[in-house]
């Protein structure tokens, strides 16, 4: 910046800027990841060999399934950015995705009955 006193971007804009620079300006993920698609870390990885963001995601997803929306919320970033990171991690086979609740993975009648039973027992 020519004039360091000139505030051309405010603090609230900084995280978004960082996020998009870290994903190479890409905003479109290559995999279809719904809000509730379940993701989990798989395999072992050399932490030094992945980016800080990928390491954070893999740590969050170690030994548990979390939805795309939860990953974004826990890491305080947008779902767009998380989807791009997850696409990269999928390509590198460092995460696995579970059955989506899309057209082919809708919950069964038995699943819904379990939800009802659970809510009744709460």
């Amino acid at each position, binding site marked *: 910046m020519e004039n360091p006193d000139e505030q051309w971007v405010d603090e609230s804009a900084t995280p978004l800027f960082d996020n998009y620079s870290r994903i190479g300006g890409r905003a479109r993920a290559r*995999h279809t990841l*719904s809000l*509730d698609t379940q993701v989990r870390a798989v395999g072992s990885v050399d932490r030094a060999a992945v980016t800080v963001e990928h390491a954070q995601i893999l740590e969050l997803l170690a030994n548990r399934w979390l939805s795309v*929306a939860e990953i*974004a919320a826990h890491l305080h970033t947008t779902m767009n950015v998380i989807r791009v990171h997850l696409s990269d991690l999928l390509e590198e086979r460092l995460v696995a*995705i579970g059955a989506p609740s*899309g057209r082919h993975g*809708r*919950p069964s009648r038995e699943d819904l009955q379990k939800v*009802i039973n659970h809510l009744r027992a709460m």
Partner: protein
Amino acid sequence: MKGQGVGPQSVKVIVAGGFGTGKTTLVGAVSEIPPLTTEEVLTQVSEGVDDTGGIESKTTTTVALDFGRRTIASDLVLYLFGTPGQDRFWFMWDELSRGATGAMILVDPRRLATSFPAIDYFEARGIPFVVAVNLFHGQRRNTLAEVREALQLEDSSVPLIECDARDAPSCRAALIALVEHAMARMPALPEAVG
């Protein structure tokens, strides 16, 4: 698909309604974690404004979503997603609706009209929904029959229930009514529908 695991099945429920109808309160009453907020940045290509010689004009909007989760079993998770406050983010509603089991439309009996867009949306898409009249603000002034009449629900089998978003058992009862309604709407042979 590459990298496909088994993973838990998710059940997605949408909590809709006008601004200030108690959506986040209801999500919090059922969620095992304090409701989380996440954001999606939406990019829209402006259409038909003027001819800029192939240069697309884009605008971006950030939409915030509140949601909660309830682990039903090791292989089954319930997610409750509140719709964005502004009705104009319909593309976000489309994403929320994909694969959703159903929607609960919260209605403020003093401001019924704020819930009309949500009712129209789910009616038009054939997504099972229930209408929950939130008694958040105390005594209701209308009978449920009057509310049903005012809402002009196309389908008389749509459950219309009362609930108090601050009261967890009341929220759970409303949610149970929704899941039961969604089950009743399922095809007899669920495997036959892809």
